[in-house]
């Protein structure tokens, strides 16, 4: 597992940084979003100039956003600079950690939920051995128990479902 992660990291380090035209992808995403709001806004009703309807503001901003994202796409496609190198491993691990918290906290309680969240977040970090991860996760989850349930009294169940 560890060797695999190290190799994955190395591949990511060595890979050539992608060109900024990836930014055009961001523009395309915004364009798609603006179309959703334009269509949805028309369905909600734009009203009259005197009495702007529920859908008017989404349609107006949607149209402006559509034009701007087309400009962004055009500009980024001509851009030849190197982009920042993405860190997809951390991207996935942090997202997964939030997902683990969302899935566990109501079912098995805050303490095991926080434990698994820490393990998930630190999983791809090769600089921390498994034992260290377990110790970190145990101390964080116990500290959360003491602080958030014991001291502040947030409505969490320490173990088990709500």
């Amino acid at each position, binding site marked *: 597992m560890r060797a695999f992660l190290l190799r994955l990291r190395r591949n990511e380090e060595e890979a050539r940084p992608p060109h900024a035209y*990836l*930014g055009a992808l*961001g*523009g395309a995403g*915004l364009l798609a979003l*603006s179309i*959703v*709001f334009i269509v*949805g806004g028309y369905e*909600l009703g734009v009203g*009259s*100039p*005197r*009495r*702007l*309807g*529920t859908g*008017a*503001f*989404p349609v107006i*901003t*949607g149209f*402006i*956003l559509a034009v*701007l*994202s087309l*400009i*962004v796409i055009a*500009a*980024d496609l001509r851009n030849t600079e190197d*982009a*920042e190198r*993405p*860190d997809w491993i*951390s991207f996935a691990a*942090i*997202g997964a*950690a*939030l*997902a683990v*918290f*969302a899935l566990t*906290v*109501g079912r098995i309680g*805050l303490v095991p939920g*926080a434990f698994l*969240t*820490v393990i998930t*977040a*630190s999983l791809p*970090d090769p*600089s*921390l051995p498994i034992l260290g991860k377990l110790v*970190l996760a145990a101390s*964080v*989850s116990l500290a*959360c128990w003491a602080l*958030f349930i014991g001291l502040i009294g*947030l409505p*969490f169940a320490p173990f088990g479902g709500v």
Partner: protein
Amino acid sequence: MEILAGFGNGLLVALQPENLLYCFVGVFLGTFIGVLPGIGSMAAISMILPLTFYLEPTSALVMIAGVYYGAEYGGSIASILMNIPGTPSSSITCIDGYPMARDGRAGIALFGSAVASFGGGIIGMIVMAVLAPGLAELALNFGPTEYFAVILLGLVAASAVSNGNPIKGITMVVAGLMLGTVGVDITTGAERFTMGIPEMRDGVHLVIVAMGLFGVGELIVSIRANAKGALQNEIDYKKFYPSRAQWKAMFAPILRGSGIGSFFGALPGTGQTVASAVAYAVEKKVSPNRESFGKGAIEGVAVPEAANNSATQTAFIPTLTLGVPGSASMALVIGALMMYGIVPGPRLLVEHSDLFWGLVASFLIGNILLLILNIPLIGLWVRLLKIPYRYMYPTIIVLICIGVYSLNNNVFDVWLTMAFGWAGYLMRLFRFEPAPFLIGFVIGPMMEEQLRRAMLLSRGDATVFLTRPISGALIAITVLLLIYAIASALRARRRAAQATDVSSEIEAPSTSNKG
């Protein structure tokens, strides 16, 4: 006279034991979070916001403000000791602060920056106390048409002038305005874009957007940036008291820095980063000691810190008197006020004068606390920076999860935070700024309401925005600003293409933590 009376009154509010306590807690937590590399004041405020919901509005605002300038100050500790700016605006402090720390003068640099922050904060506070009431009085005559124009100007200034690509900045503002419409329409009661999900009826909570875009998004970026390890070398922070010559050297730069900082802080859109960059550049031209700039000059630490902190205070002027935030942090302040049912704007000074003057006075107390707090605690911050990041970020993730979950005790909010966190990372990757998005998101509903009112009053005639004198002038300024921003961006690109060796001298030494 009126100002003095208001300020005296505010001092009484701020000195109430509980407000004093929240000010202290805010400053302490803000500094604590600000010191952590890769997490700026934005993430700090959004992490603290859920805690303030149980407080009375004045205490909450005092605490949020404390977190804000505490985090700004904490950011400069990380930049001086490690050359990693904790907040983007403290990247200028790195230029001279880090060489000072390397020479074994870390203690003096830290103390100097605390004193400069204090001086800047006090001057910024005075500017705010003097200017805000007048501006509010002027704005009391504004109708919806003028308001719409002010908001438009604020949004364009905040997105186009700040940094990076103006087109992308405006794109993000508009995207924020658009997504701000999700939820129930306050005017008609109709649901918009909720996809039938009951949790979406109230729209996406501001804390979720901020925590996702800034907390989670910055965290993903900072994991690799901090993989190289924590603070290694021994820091000599015992010797912290500057010599008499150093005091003298700092005095004028602090005044100049505060003046420049107060000016830029009050303008919507420019904010602390521009303030400290301009102040540093000016100081480098006028200082008698200009050759040693960049090699560890104490003036080079004092100037950006004074400018940064005075801008932090004056940024509250347009935020509270016009309801137009100049930065993403100020957008959070507005969002927090609206959660209490307080509408920021010219009426705030009349209807909630206790809150306004209490806040102003709390700046004074908070800055004193910051100074007192940081002399004994420098050792603690140094030790905090020695904790490897691999222990830090999984812990922060758990804290973020607990924070957003407790907003409504609902896991749906955690899922949304995940989505916004990923979006925040992708924005940084694709070089879109998340800050204008947040500003648009907060201001969207207000802007829509003013637009609807203005159109109703003018019987559907959109030219009213151009024909009414104040709004016409504001729209004209907006257009000029837009042209200027785009033209200067084009010029910068052409110049960069012509000569690659002309590297800007006020460029940040480490750009990994752009927020």
